[in-house]
């Protein structure tokens, strides 16, 4: 972190998460020009000023001036009517770091009023990975009671009695979600997956979504790395990245999670940390550095790992030279830029390079590929209507490409697209881009097998 930037994050042993005053300079940068209006997905759906970034900044200014109370119900509602997608930041002429502002405000709100009981209950289990793990596994075993599985077995939908009560928040019978897997990724694989003739070893931060919802994609990521002669460490003691908690302002829980993750990855002795999710990677590259900026022990460690964290696509194409895929994947594929992957990790060229290198694959760019899909983690649950309005646009853009496969680099977007593409009548398969590369590598073997 540059020194000037550091002053905007940490002051007198506190970060902006602990002291709202620190973001005042960030607020000052806003000219109220309104450029955020052209990219803010929530404004695009709601069409009122309160939905857009510059007004959230104006309200923050009023809060700091004592003209509005932070816990005014309307202030509260406004602060949570944001996806934290960072789209506004890409279009801001004066480079306002709105992510810092919104996180500081939400943290200040939690400091003032505490967490609502439900969030508190959920977040506290995250600090106890075993409890969280047990909960999700029981959920996996029980999901058949409330949800039915589609024919391919890949997605589930609410059964009618549950759909009736859940309809209001989008849990109707049309809703599609990935099924919870009874055996999570980290239980399927050993802590170290050796690769014959390994030249390098990396540590894989799976994140919860790849671990519980998309373990097959996680497995594909490991397979691709080993196919490139990379030894993969998947420490079992890793826990949630903390982003879902951070966006709700529970900074202390995130700090606990971050410190544990740092300790866990320190122990691997690996030089690189690989992620397959933009939110997780963004956490390691940016959020940990910020939340631990005043921590003399973990602050430097966070900076150490920030420089060594790579999305798998960047690692494959910029750090090593991707082994050329030879197996044919006969698909028409489009790619959705996840907000946190593109706007936080700045990864957008690499997945496209990988996809275009796969033989047989036809790549079709959709219009506005980096427009947010409307997921925003728990935003989709709390603001289902806005979220689907945003998702519908995305689904239309996808349908216009006539692709049969939608590739993504972030599991949360995969969940959102699964629901929205299906609702828009699309039949496309939603997949992590790494799975298409894995498919090509697998085909290579079977193609050879059939020839010999």
């Amino acid at each position: 972190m540059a020194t000037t930037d550091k002053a905007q994050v940490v002051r007198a042993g506190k970060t902006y998460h602990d002291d709202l005053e620190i973001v005042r300079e960030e607020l000052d940068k806003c000219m109220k020009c309104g450029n955020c209006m052209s990219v803010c997905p929530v404004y695009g759906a709601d069409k009122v000023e309160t939905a857009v970034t510059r007004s959230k900044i104006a309200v923050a200014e009023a809060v700091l001036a004592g003209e509005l109370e932070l816990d005014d119900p309307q202030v509260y509602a406004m602060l949570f009517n944001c996806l934290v997608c960072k789209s506004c930041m890409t279009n801001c002429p004066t480079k306002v770091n709105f992510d810092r502002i919104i996180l500081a405000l939400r943290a200040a709100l939690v400091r003032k009023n505490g967490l609502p009981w439900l969030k508190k209950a959920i977040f506290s289990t995250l600090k106890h990975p075993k409890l969280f793990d047990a909960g999700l596994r029981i959920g996996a075993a029980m999901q058949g009671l409330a949800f039915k599985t589609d024919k391919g077995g890949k997605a589930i939908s609410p059964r009618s009695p549950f759909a009736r009560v859940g309809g209001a928040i989008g849990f109707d019978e049309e809703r599609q979600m990935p099924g919870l897997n009874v055996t999570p990724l980290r239980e399927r694989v050993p802590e170290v997956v050796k690769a014959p003739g390994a030249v390098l070893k990396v540590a894989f931060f799976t994140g919860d979504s790849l671990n519980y919802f998309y373990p097959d994609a996680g497995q594909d990521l490991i397979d691709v790395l080993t196919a490139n002669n990379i030894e993969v460490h998947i420490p079992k003691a890793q826990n949630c990245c903390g982003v879902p908690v951070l966006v709700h302002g529970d900074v202390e829980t995130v700090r606990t999670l971050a410190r544990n993750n740092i300790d866990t990855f320190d122990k691997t002795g690996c030089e690189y940390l690989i992620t397959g999710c933009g939110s997780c990677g963004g956490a390691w590259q940016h959020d940990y550095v910020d939340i631990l900026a005043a921590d003399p022990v973990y602050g430097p460690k966070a900076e150490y790992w920030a420089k060594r964290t790579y999305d798998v696509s960047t690692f494959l194409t910029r750090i090593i030279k991707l082994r050329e895929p030879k197996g044919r994947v006969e698909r028409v594929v489009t790619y959705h830029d996840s907000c946190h992957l593109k706007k936080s990790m700045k990864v957008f060229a690499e997945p496209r390079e990988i996809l275009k290198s796969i033989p047989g694959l036809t790549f079709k760019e959709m219009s506005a590929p980096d427009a947010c899909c409307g997921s925003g983690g728990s935003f989709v649950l709390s603001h289902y209507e806005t979220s689907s309005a945003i998702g519908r646009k995305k689904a239309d853009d996808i349908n216009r490409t006539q692709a049969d496969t939608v590739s993504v680099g972030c599991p949360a977007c995969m969940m959102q697209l699964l629901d929205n593409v299906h609702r828009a009548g699309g039949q496309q398969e939603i997949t992590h881009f790494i799975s298409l590369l894995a498919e090509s590598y697998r085909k290579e073997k079977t193609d050879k097998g059939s020839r010999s």
Partner: protein
Amino acid sequence: MLDQNIIEQLEALVGKENVLTGKVDLVAYSYDATADLPRQMPDVVVLPTSAEMVQEIVRLARRNKIAIYPRGAGTNLSGGAVPLKKGIVLSFQKMNAILEVDAANLTAVVQPGVVIAALNSAVAQHGLIYPPDPGTVATATMGGSAAENSGGLRGLKYGVTKNYIMGMEVVLASGEKVRFGGKTVKNVTAYDFSNLFVGSEGTLGIITELTAKLIPAPKYRRTMMGVFKSLADAGNAVAGIIAAQVIPATLEIMDRMTIRTVEDFAHIGLPVDAESLLLIEVDGMSEDVVRAEAEAVMQVVTGNNGDLKTAETDQERDQLWTARRNALPALASLNNMVVLEDATVPRSRITDMLIACQDIGKKYNLTLGTFGHAGDGNLHPTILCDKRNQEEVARVHKAVDEIFEVALRFGGTLSGEHGIGVAKMKYLGDELGQSGLNLMRNIKEALDPEYILNPGKMVPLREN
């Protein structure tokens, strides 16, 4: 505070969901993009969805002597959308339908809340464009930009908003709805109402529908940049281009302060010892003509000691534009208050005006950079200061006074494209004289005798 009864009547008119009264809502509509103006919360924000609703709201407001502040996207730069006297903010964000694109007549009919860029995407499939392009095309609305008569980067060749509004539907302060103009190129029926309401800043009537003129999109373009060691060379180059009978689509200028700041901000390899930079784009329907024009421009640039750069690809064009695109962001990054003016002079006085702005900056010891549309004489002297330093802010006000004084002395005008609003109202007499002010007031009072519509803008309220 408005009577609850009024709020209920408004809710009955437009639906509860389109009437906003929470304090957060009111804060969100208490400002526009103008720096250095006090904010003012309205009593209520109303989002109508039809012209008939607007009529009813106006009648209700008039009966109860409530001010109405029409608002598009609130991106204007003269305080035009700030609800000075509280009352009703009438936001057109939900009247955003493109009603018709008529390629045969080269027209489009739109509701006022349509974003300019959205109209351009809709007409692109017909190979057409709506040329006015203020810096805020991606956010500003057709209604707002018509009310403000916005300009932009293509003014020299393509004109400004007033040249592209062919007809309107307007709700008057009486509550009556009037339609005039339309799809015909020629129309001399009655007074030229379109030109009266375009640029009236919401003080004479409320625009509820617009008929806009479209033109075929130019098929070819060439982009060039000239970097000059002296302001005189740059000024001569501008004159030389026009003398060579080339009318560029874009002819932008930046002064030394702006060049240096952009380079510090974006590191794009601009020479920091340069005194001036011109960005020139020529376009047209014929490749040969565009090439000939580009060659003429290149000759003029080099003939005036300019260091020439040209773009062969879209990527190179984008690089040349980076400097101009970063001008305002870079300057704005220097401090927390950005005062962006738009004093405009005849093209032949561009160099004089740039020098005058630099001198004024020095005189008041301010950070001041100037960039703008050299082709049409419309400059943006931009002053950066600390909004918490009252003494510095006072110096800014003096500098702004002097910038306007100089612009008028050079035969120019107070505002090329941002409008008068509240920010420049006090200077109006300097340009128009008392008879001009009287004319303004007579027109205002003929149409809005009770000062219901955007009161306190353009024409000062009567003191009583």
